[in-house]
């Protein structure tokens, strides 16, 4: 029998060995009390004094953890901004960088592989490097160098956020190229659309009629951004395809692309990503000074995509939201003016097919080799993958099963957008702001600007290609035959520096106006008859209709459009979809089951407001999804197409009773529209009964989650108002909505803003989600910098404390 000592020795050696040499060590390193990396953030106090080589600066926080950074020099300012970003959002910054660089799986394991395969194939890293080439030798480059040093000062000297402990890795050094990758992410999220590929897939599989119905090139409404054509500058003399051939001339495209198109769709932004903005001339306001409102609708995540900040330095005094990883305020206000952005939906991505022979593709009369590089996708805890990054003259070549396409995207080039935003932050008047916006190369955005002098501006940013086929301008809403040199982009230089001066629609020839009475943008058509082809399609006009209706109503009343009215518009919950379709639902009651009729009856007399205490709003919102499926699902299944192919709600609700979708659907039996409505309402009633919902607020709850999926990191579920169709925008199903609300004024009282969550990404911080209640309840916080009181961090020459 072994002795006690030998048994104990074996037990100890085995246990300690297992703890040190197996996966258990990761848990011990992370979770052991007193020393675990995960818990460090729960007791950590950052340095109060930080050494900087760039000049003195201070950081003070307000009661929502929003920093005011004040500095004696511009580079000192951006060094401090980098430090503050890292302190609040270092993990998020690293995650964004990894996603765009295709190095996510190295941190998160197998679940990041598919993402990495796509992002590596697109070589956004190469595009970001091209960006840096454009920016490096400019004052913006100097600012980014200082910012990078600030991030590094935090990363190398302070404790890391708990997420790094959970994943068991440490972030690599931050670089200016990493900041450029963040800019690429924002641009990709707003303009990376494979709509034309999906359209071509539908046309190939289900016919051109179905494609035109699901992907109409124009929605029949009368609320473009610029309603008064006389406001629009003329002079567009170049043939850029507007009025030319449409997508039905697409390159031959076989059905093997549906899998590719569906896969690519998973790397686009959630459905319905959009935004609202409007500006009101001082001639219409109570104060005599203009007003600006903006609320960009993006993916709602924990922590939020935006980081709020006040920046004070030589020549700069700017308040608003930054994107963690880039130091400049993107949406906000400075001493002179205020500005906001919404997505134009500009068509800046094209897809090409090729005649391929091995490693070569035909390009006109010659055969060219694909530019091919082998890249390794590192997988934490799994088998590494090898990706062949293949490029043609158009850009990356993406292959999936039997389908191969080339992709051209304006964002694959170097861009001056960082320079534009940097200069916009420092602009002293409208002319300087517009001069800055000329350099905003990517993404395409509707910008509204107003200053305290009363000057206002609306315009469209971003490079928009002037496509040519055989020397003729063509529209971009089609898949091009790349081998036939269709749809060429003059001036385009993927992964290089483009010719900014030619080949693109000139800035002044894009829709724009100065000093309108008032103007609203909600991703709708910019103008009814543009000189140039701008976009393949625009968003449904429900929000635009409502904003213009409210502004028109007030303007017609002769009452001023005051700041309080601005707030009412931004928080408005009337759903124009409901106003358009409720009567159709009520007219179908005779065809309904008893329970469906009871549910439908709740819609009678409803004011169409998507408020949390409304039972009618509950019925309508759930009905939308069931009705959409009832109309389209069978056909999409028949065509082997997934949810990415559903049309927008304008298409859905404008189908009249004689539409082929009811009389002669591509799949399934012919049905009366009333029958389809009745069936959808029956399913709605069943869902409500099963879930136990009583009011809209029981269903319409925030679901803002941290990427880890760990319950405690997710934000609390709060009932809120609004829907995908309302100005107050919340899209529960796609996890998107208002990512920042800005109401800007120049009458001496503070502007207002709020973000959906908190400014600090540290779970243990008091500011992890301290603005969420206000956001969900439609409240705001005054945008007032903290310039006096205790200094939280002081930056000065010498050593850290």
């Amino acid at each position: 029998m072994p002795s006690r000592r030998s048994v104990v020795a074996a037990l100890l050696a085995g246990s300690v060995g297992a703890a040190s040499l197996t996966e258990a060590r990761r848990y011990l390193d992370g979770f052991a009390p007193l020393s675990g990396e995960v818990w460090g953030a729960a007791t950590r106090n950052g340095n109060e004094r930080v050494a900087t080589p760039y000049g003195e600066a201070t950081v003070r926080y307000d009661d929502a953890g929003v920093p005011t950074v004040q500095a004696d020099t511009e580079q000192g300012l951006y060094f401090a901004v980098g430090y503050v970003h890292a302190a609040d959002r270092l993990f998020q910054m690293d995650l964004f960088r990894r996603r765009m660089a295709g190095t996510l799986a190295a941190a998160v394991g197998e679940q990041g592989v598919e993402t990495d395969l796509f992002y590596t194939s697109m070589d956004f890293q190469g595009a970001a490097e091209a960006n840096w080439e454009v920016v490096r030798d400019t004052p913006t480059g100097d600012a980014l160098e200082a910012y990078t040093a600030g991030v590094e000062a935090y990363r190398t000297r302070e404790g890391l956020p708990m997420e790094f402990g959970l994943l068991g890795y440490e972030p690599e050094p931050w670089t200016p190229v990493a900041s450029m990758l963040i800019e690429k992410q924002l641009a990709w999220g707003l303009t990376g659309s494979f709509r034309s590929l999906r359209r071509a897939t539908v046309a190939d599989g289900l016919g051109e009629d179905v494609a035109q119905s699901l992907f109409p090139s124009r929605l029949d409404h009368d609320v473009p951004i610029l309603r008064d054509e006389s406001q629009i500058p003329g002079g567009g003399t170049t043939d850029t395809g507007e009025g030319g051939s449409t997508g039905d001339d697409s390159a031959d495209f076989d059905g093997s692309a549906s899998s590719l198109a569906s896969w690519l769709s998973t790397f686009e932004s959630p459905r319905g990503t959009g935004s609202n903005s409007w500006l009101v001339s001082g001639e219409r306001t109570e104060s005599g000074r203009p007003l600006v409102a903006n609320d960009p609708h993006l993916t709602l995540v924990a922590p939020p995509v935006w980081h709020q900040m006040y920046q004070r330095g030589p020549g700069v005094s700017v308040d608003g939201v930054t994107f963690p990883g880039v130091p400049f305020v993107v949406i906000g206000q400075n001493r002179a003016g205020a500005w906001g952005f919404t997505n134009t939906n500009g068509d800046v991505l094209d897809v090409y097919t090729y005649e391929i022979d091995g490693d070569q593709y035909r390009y006109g009369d010659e055969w060219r080799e694909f530019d091919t590089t082998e890249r390794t996708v590192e997988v934490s805890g799994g088998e590494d993958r090898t990706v062949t990054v293949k490029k043609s003259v158009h850009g990356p070549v993406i292959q999936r099963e039997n389908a191969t396409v080339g992709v051209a995207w304006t964002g694959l080039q170097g861009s001056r957008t960082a320079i534009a935003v940097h200069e916009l932050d420092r602009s002293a008047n409208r002319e300087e702001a517009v001069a800055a916006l000329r350099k905003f190369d990517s993404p395409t955005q509707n910008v509204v600007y107003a200053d305290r002098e009363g000057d206002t501006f609306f315009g469209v940013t971003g490079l928009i290609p002037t496509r040519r086929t055989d020397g003729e301008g063509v529209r971009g809403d089609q898949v091009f035959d790349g081998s036939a040199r269709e749809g060429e982009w003059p001036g385009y230089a993927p992964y290089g520096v483009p010719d900014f001066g030619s080949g693109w629609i000139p800035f002044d020839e894009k829709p724009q106006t100065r000093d309108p009475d008032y103007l609203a943008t909600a991703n709708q058509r910019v103008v009814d008859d543009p000189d140039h082809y701008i976009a393949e399609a625009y968003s449904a006009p429900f929000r635009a209709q409502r904003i213009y209706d409210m502004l028109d109503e007030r303007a017609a009343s002769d009452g001023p459009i005051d700041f309080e009215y601005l707030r009412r518009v931004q928080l408005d919950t009337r759903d124009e979809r409901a106003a358009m379709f409720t009567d159709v639902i009520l007219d179908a009651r005779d065809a309904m089951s008893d329970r469906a009729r009871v549910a439908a009856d709740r819609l009678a007399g409803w004011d169409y407001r998507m408020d949390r205490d409304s039972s009618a709003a509950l019925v309508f919102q759930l009905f939308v999804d069931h009705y959409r499926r009832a109309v389209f699902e069978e056909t999409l299944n028949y065509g082997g197409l997934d949810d990415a192919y559903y049309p927008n709600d304008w298409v859905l609700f404008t189908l009249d009773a004689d539409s082929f979708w009811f009389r002669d659907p591509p799949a399934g039996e012919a049905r009366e529209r009333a029958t389809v409505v009745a069936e959808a309402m029956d399913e709605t009633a069943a869902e409500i009964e099963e879930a136990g919902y009583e009011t809209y607020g029981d269903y319409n709850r925030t679901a803002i989650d941290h990427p880890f999926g760990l319950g405690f990191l997710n934000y609390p579920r709060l009932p809120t108002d609004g829907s995908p169709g309302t100005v107050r925008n919340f899209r529960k199903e796609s996890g998107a909505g208002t990512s920042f609300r800005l109401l800007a004024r120049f009458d001496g009282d503070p502007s207002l803003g709020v973000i959906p969550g908190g400014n600090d990404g540290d779970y243990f911080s008091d500011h992890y989600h301290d603005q969420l209640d206000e956001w969900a309840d439609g409240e705001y916080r005054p945008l007032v910098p903290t310039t006096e009181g205790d200094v939280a961090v002081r930056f000065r020459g010498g050593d850290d404390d």
Partner: protein
Amino acid sequence: MTEGDGSVAGDVTDTERPVEQSSDGTLARLYDLQRDPRRRRLATAVALGLGLLLATVHWAGLLAGGALVGLSRPTLRRALAAGFGFGVLVLVVTAARFALAGTLGAVLATWPLVGVGVAIPLVAGPLGALARGLVRDAPLER
């Protein structure tokens, strides 16, 4: 129950073996410490303090702390109990640190992570205290 009756089954023969000459001095001092309640309390206090200090540097400090408090116990069974007690103390100190930082509530909400954090010292303390089993129990005083 006497000081020497807590040995685990099968270790009776260990206590009856003569102390080896080479470790006479050290072991004798350890046995004296284990037998003297006042010195044992002092040693335990030092072991707890040192263990806590080491545990703030590295998780291996939890094992070391458990071993130190265990060695001051006269039997392996009592050593294991002391190691467990050390684990509890680590949790109390940790909770106090979080409470002082105002984050205790947030930490307690991190299930399942907090469960792992609680389990580690409660296992590591007794595991470290197993080291007491490498040392023979003090011979019975006659």
